[in-house]
């Protein structure tokens, strides 16, 4: 037993590092967030009050931070008719749309790379990742230049005589979706590629041999076998899109407030840290649920 214990400190250290990382940079901030979400708004000096009331000596949890997300106190229209719920729904909807768009564009992309000659694959993958070398903000800004009323695309359309005056593209849902799809596409392509490249293409031959047309073989063999890649790519796009703040702010319309923007406003405009925290906690819940579904799916593979 003594001998077995000898290498343990080193091993503990190696295994411990990720845990320490998670505790310090994920667990602690989350607990702080959770704490703030249950206290009262503060003043100019401290943005929130302590949870412990010194005068009464009582612990005071302010559930109101959460209730106000779900219930509109002002006009009494009842549950779920709040700007917050609307913003959540909108965020989920656009995150879903983005994930679907990324899947539709990314799947043929990944399939093409996976089926190309092994010697050209690194170059093709490089092209997928190349945009990461430029600043994220610059890339999003570039879309402004393309989609603006006097932008490249409108000028091209007018030059071709397809339209006489500029089409409003910037600051709409379309421009926001274009931006998000563009930015998150690699997150779909990479896991899908990793999955498809492992696929045994003889299975497709077997399907052809048994009478499946190329399309049927794709649908009955390739798609089911790439399910894990589809789910992984979908989650990798959906989750960050849900809380996306920068792209909707730069490319989206003013009327379509997403939840990231709402949290920002509560935090920095209304200075209501507790409510901003409560909104963030609820959003984490929204992310954990699809993740749980994902793990349920991948758990099945065994």
């Amino acid at each position, binding site marked *: 037993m003594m001998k077995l214990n000898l290498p343990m400190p080193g091993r503990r250290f190696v295994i411990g590092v990720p845990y320490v990382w998670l505790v310090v940079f994920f667990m602690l901030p989350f607990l702080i967030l959770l704490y703030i979400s249950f206290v009262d708004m503060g003043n100019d000096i401290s943005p929130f009050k302590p949870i412990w009331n010194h005068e009464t000596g009582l612990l005071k949890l302010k559930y109101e931070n959460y209730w106000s997300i779900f219930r509109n106190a002002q006009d009494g229209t009842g549950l779920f008719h709040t700007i917050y719920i609307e913003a959540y729904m909108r965020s989920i909807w656009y995150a879903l749309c983005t994930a679907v768009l990324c899947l539709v564009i990314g799947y043929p992309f990944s399939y093409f790379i996976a089926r190309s000659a092994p010697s050209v694959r690194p170059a093709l993958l490089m092209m997928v990742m190349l945009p990461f070398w430029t600043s994220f903000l610059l890339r999003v800004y570039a879309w402004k230049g393309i989609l603006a009323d006097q932008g490249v695309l409108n000028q091209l359309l007018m030059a071709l005589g397809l339209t006489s005056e500029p089409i409003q593209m910037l600051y709409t849902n379309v421009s926001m979706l274009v931006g998000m799809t563009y930015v998150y596409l690699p997150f779909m392509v990479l896991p899908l590629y990793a999955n498809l490249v492992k696929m045994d293409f003889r299975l497709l031959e077997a399907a*052809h041999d*048994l*009478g499946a047309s190329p399309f049927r073989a794709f649908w009955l*063999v390739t798609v089911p076998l790439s399910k894990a890649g589809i789910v992984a790519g979908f989650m990798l796009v959906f989750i960050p899109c849900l809380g996306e703040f920068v792209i909707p702010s730069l490319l989206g319309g003013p009327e379509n407030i997403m939840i990231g923007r709402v949290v920002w406003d509560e935090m920095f405009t209304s200075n209501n840290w507790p409510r901003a925290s409560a909104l963030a906690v609820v959003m984490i819940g929204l992310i954990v649920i699809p993740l749980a579904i994902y793990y349920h799916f991948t758990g099945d593979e065994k």
Partner: protein
Amino acid sequence: MATGGFKDNYLVTEKLVKRFDEALAVDEVDLSIAQGEIFALLGSSGCGKSTLLRMLAGFEKPTSGRILLGGKDVASLAPYERPFNMMFQSYALFPHLDIWENIAFGLKREGLAKEDIKERVGEMLDLVQLTPYAKRKPHQLSGGQQQRVALARSLAKKPKVLLLDEPLGALDKKLREQTQFELVNIIEKVGVTCVMVTHDQEEAMTMAGRIAVMSKGRVLQVGSPEEVYEHPANRFVADFIGNVNLFEGVLSVDKPDRCAVQTAIGEIQVGHGVSGALNMPVAIAVRPEKIEIHKERPAVDHNLFTGKVKEIAYFGSYNTFIVQASDGKRIKITEANTSRHDLSDITWEDDVFFWWSDAAGVVLRD
């Protein structure tokens, strides 16, 4: 199955050629396969046998030539339009489908009624004795069971031709021997015409009715296992099928019923004519088991030579001796191990006599 007058040449390839860039993979192959026959394409890797099979299946397009099934050209049909089904090397079972679904895959593509599919899959599961495993996934089965699923899947659609690509290649030796007979039994029960590809001559000899020996894209000989073994057409076939001792020499006597060849170890008598020119270079092939080895001089007057035992290998059922002949050539001789103790007391460095009857040798011109 209406075949018209095509029973003996049911599946025919005519001058079939496949060229990959500059490399000639299959070179003008003419084959004629009878209905219900098990036909093996035998050759070492890279000989073009797999490419030939893939052309039959439709995965490769012939560069030129025709593939005729019952007189009709099928070379232009896509794999999913051909009445050919293939059992893939390492099976290519669909990992996401259970055994039942794997076997039903082809039937569903035909748009059969649900009950018909159920019945047919049931029959197939019975045939390969896997009914209790219907709901398992392929990875939950042993190699031999997977092999049977692959067979059932390829037979489910009642193909006109069954293609087997190294059907036993993924099994270990013991299982392979068992499975060979099982496989042949099932194929014969179904009565399907079968083309198999293998690099294993033993597999080809036990399973196939006829064998095509291939090398460098060409078919060198087509014949029954006995024919290719006993009467190889050329040096390559003789050497490829089983073990052989080749003696190079020139034709010295050529009569209709016998001939003789002058070789480095002396004159060798052969019990068949070759109708060739005298003094033409030929080789004589003699199988190791057809040579007798003795310590005492046997009472024979031809094909008797002497040598020194250099190596002895014990294989259980037989012994192999490597004997160095007078000219330095190493000759392989095998003796069946019929008695338990008596290894005919021949040992290393013994001077021995060896001989074979004039019916044992075969003259090879190519």
